[in-house]
């Protein structure tokens, strides 16, 4: 008597998910895991940035989830605001990454500001993973009220 391995009939939809898992597991091979994330290998990470303008300020709002305040760098040079830093990976040596969609590593993001700002009065706040940088406009570009005498 032979023992034959029982093979369950496969549904078409199961095949697709098997294929997807196989593709996923290909990118989870040790070779790929030495990179932060295969898909971001060439693009890096570019956090979403919004820019607002009101009478007194330019305000930049950047999505930077899960960072430490100390790891965020903000600089202003020649009318260009640059936000950079490092997304560090927590964990111990034996941990195994099953899925890595979060970006790990350094990043840098620049944007040209529409008006001149007063670099000495820039203020930044980091809350709930959102960085808000308030850049007061330079005195000479602020709208002025001229009194009629």
């Amino acid at each position: 008597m032979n023992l034959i391995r029982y093979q369950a009939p496969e549904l078409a939809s199961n095949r697709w998910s098997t294929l997807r898992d196989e593709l996923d597991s290909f990118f989870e091979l040790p070779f790929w895991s030495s990179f932060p994330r295969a898909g971001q290998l060439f693009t890096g990470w570019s956090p979403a940035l919004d820019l607002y303008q009101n009478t007194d300020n330019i305000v930049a709002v950047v999505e930077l989830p899960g960072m430490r305040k100390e790891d965020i760098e903000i600089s202003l040079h020649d009318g260009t605001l640059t936000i950079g830093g490092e997304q560090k990976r927590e964990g111990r040596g034996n941990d195994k990454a099953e899925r890595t969609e979060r970006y790990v590593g350094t990043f840098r993001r620049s944007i040209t500001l529409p008006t001149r700002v007063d670099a000495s009065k820039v203020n930044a706040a980091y809350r709930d993973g959102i960085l808000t940088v308030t850049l007061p406009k330079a005195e000479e570009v602020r709208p002025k009220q001229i009194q009629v005498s």
Partner: protein
Amino acid sequence: MNTLTRENRDADRAQVDQFIAPPASVIEAGEGYTLELEMPGVTKDGLDISVENNELTVVGQRSLPTVQGTLIHHESRSNNFRRTFELDPSIDADKISAKIEQGLVTLTLPKAEHVKPRKISVS
């Protein structure tokens, strides 16, 4: 099955459009799994985590800062977050814990006692 958290992409297809699926990372350590989800703009109050029929759902309602002025450059999406995972049978669903720090949700999913590796001593 070697992934703890198989994603249920087809569940609630109709609802998917209203939500953004947040980027997630899953790390396996000996005693369980750690699941991280990026949800900038979500506070503790806006976070809703539930397990039903072995399916883990994480929903994050965002409370974004309101800025006075005109939006002159726009990249962000203001949608709320939602993502569903199928729990591996080895996970003890009653012992899942979660925290949120700077928009990063960290879930700790311990394995059930009976699946943890153990040494059997020979007497």
